[in-house]
């Protein structure tokens, strides 16, 4: 092999010549890669056309059971006909603009907060956005003031419910998990023990159990007459559960920060909290962005479990729609495919943002 072989070949020749060169290098480099390439092509040829045929070519969007019965492909008419039930659950039909508006507002606040990495001028707006936005969302959802009719939160459902449970979950689980991680590393035995026991107990039981406990057991311990709303109990259950997982993620990050960083903070007379906030956590949290987002994605999907205590999240409302009319019931594949697509869209965006955040935060620090 000559010395020049190490250098990437310069793109020369016509497009087709380059295309041939590229495929030789990337697709047909040796018998094993050629086999893999041909195998993959065969698999895709086998897989893709039937899906396209079913999902697009032979599918119908018409929101009628008759049209669906005639179609040989997917019956998106089911989603079309039940869209408002799927999106908003049992929220009063006439008032469904309110959860829609609340959902858009929530997405706007989330995007605004996440965008602060790119546009530093947004940074100062994050806290005001949430402080003003969350009460507006609450007013929209509950109503009872400004001429809006009151809607009990047992009627909430669908995508707004899923988004509210997850975003409030993130906002509270994050700091709580952080405190638990610091507590687990504390030199004070009492704090350390409480943190360790909490983390291990919560991690040791399934979320369903935590939700059941929150829903069934917890009210038994409350004095007579005191009730805590079911939605709030589910929300607290999710926060407590996610925080335990996050605590371990954060602990991993804290342990990855070299000891010298703690000592440098100490030797400059910074207090424990100053050192943590200014030196240790910025480094530790950056290291654990992938597993943190992993936990959030996991939590986002776990919110579907609230259905077992009688709340209708986004997946729950799909089931509700399937049951709404026996004629629709056989179109469950379409229903779940739609739910899966929405979940995938949101989870994939989170993953993409995580990758972007890592790249953005690493800028400038490297040679």
């Amino acid at each position: 092999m000559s010395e020049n072989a190490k250098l990437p070949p310069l793109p020369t020749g016509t497009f087709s010549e380059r295309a041939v060169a590229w495929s030789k290098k990337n697709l047909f480099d040796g018998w094993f890669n050629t086999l893999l390439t041909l195998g993959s092509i065969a698999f895709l040829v086998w897989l893709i056309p039937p899906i396209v045929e079913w999902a697009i070519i032979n599918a119908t969007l018409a929101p009628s059971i008759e049209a669906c019965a005639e179609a040989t492909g997917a019956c998106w008419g089911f989603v079309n006909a039940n869209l408002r039930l799927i999106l908003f659950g049992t929220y009063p039909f006439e008032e469904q603009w309110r959860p829609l508006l609340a959902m858009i507002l929530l997405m706007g606040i989330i995007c605004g907060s996440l965008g602060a990495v790119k546009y530093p001028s947004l940074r100062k707006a994050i806290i005001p956005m949430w402080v003003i936005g969350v009460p507006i969302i609450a007013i929209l959802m509950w109503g009872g003031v400004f001429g809006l009719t009151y809607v009990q939160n047992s009627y909430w459902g669908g995508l707004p419910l899923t988004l509210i449970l997850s975003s409030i979950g993130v906002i509270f689980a994050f700091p709580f998990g952080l405190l638990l991680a610091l507590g687990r590393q504390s030199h004070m035995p009492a704090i350390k023990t409480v943190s360790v026991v909490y983390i291990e107990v919560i991690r040791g039981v399934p979320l369903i159990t935590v939700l059941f406990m929150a829903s069934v057991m917890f009210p038994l311990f409350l004095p007579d007459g005191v009730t805590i709303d079911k939605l709030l109990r589910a929300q607290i259950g999710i926060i407590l559960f996610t925080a335990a997982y996050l605590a371990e993620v954060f602990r991993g990050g804290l342990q990855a920060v070299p000891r010298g960083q703690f000592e440098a903070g100490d030797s400059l007379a910074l207090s424990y909290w100053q050192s943590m906030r200014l030196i240790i956590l910025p480094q530790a949290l950056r290291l654990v962005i992938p597993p943190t987002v992993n936990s959030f994605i996991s939590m986002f999907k776990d919110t579907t479990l609230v259905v077992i205590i009688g709340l209708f999240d986004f997946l729950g409302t799909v089931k509700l729609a399937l049951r709404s009319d026996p004629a629709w019931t056989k179109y469950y594949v379409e229903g779940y495919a739609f739910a899966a697509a929405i979940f995938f869209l949101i989870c994939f965006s989170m993953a993409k943002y995580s990758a972007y955040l890592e790249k953005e935060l690493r800028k400038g620090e490297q040679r």
Partner: protein
Amino acid sequence: MTVATEPTTGAVPPPSKEDVITVNKMNKWYGNFHVLQDIDLSVRKGERIVICGPSGSGKSTLIRTLNRLETYQSGEVYVDSILLGDDVKNIEAVRREVCMVFQHFNLFPHMTVLENLTLAPIWVRKMPKKQANELAMHYLERVRIAEQAHKFPGQLSGGQQQRVAIARSLCMQPKIMLFDEPTSALDPEMVKEVLDVMVELAKEGMTMLCVTHEMGFAKEVADRVIFMDAGQIVEMAGPKEFFDNPKSDRTKLFLSQILSH
């Protein structure tokens, strides 16, 4: 046994009001390992002390007890007339006056050089940002690295990073500076640029305790050289006495090993 009557310590002045550090019969154990044994030491204001010894002799541990990065089990350590014990207030008060330069620099990798320098003045000294920036630039110029102020530590060479670390300590305007093998992690060609800065500091009258094997530095600036072995101060003398006429066999052996190459 006090320092003054210690027979092997040579020209040690008696403890006085000018002492900024007084270590009195200090002992430290790691489990069963007696890492520091009956350490007695006093340091006057403006004194420059070099501590040397084989690895594992306790020399780094000793200077790390002086800003409470390490605890000790018996005896007393006074720094700037403040007793360094479990009292958190005392520890913070001492750390405000004592700064340390580490073997591995320990700069904050997520901050620029300038932010590294202004962090403690802003948060500990409560200095306005503008004033802290001016102070930082002043010290960056002194260590001849002002043009790198807006880079991140990872973009600098080892020697440059260590000079930034020295400037970061100076920004706290400390009364005492501790150096823990400041040139041991550097490539040979970068040792000089760091030592030059340290020599300048020494000549300006900074109280310094420096753990190092740079015997040239010791000869040039040290008022006293301390040799430690197996957790004890074996020998303590002025540099001339120490290098020309060491008393203890262990010191002689160490010096022959370290000076022979």
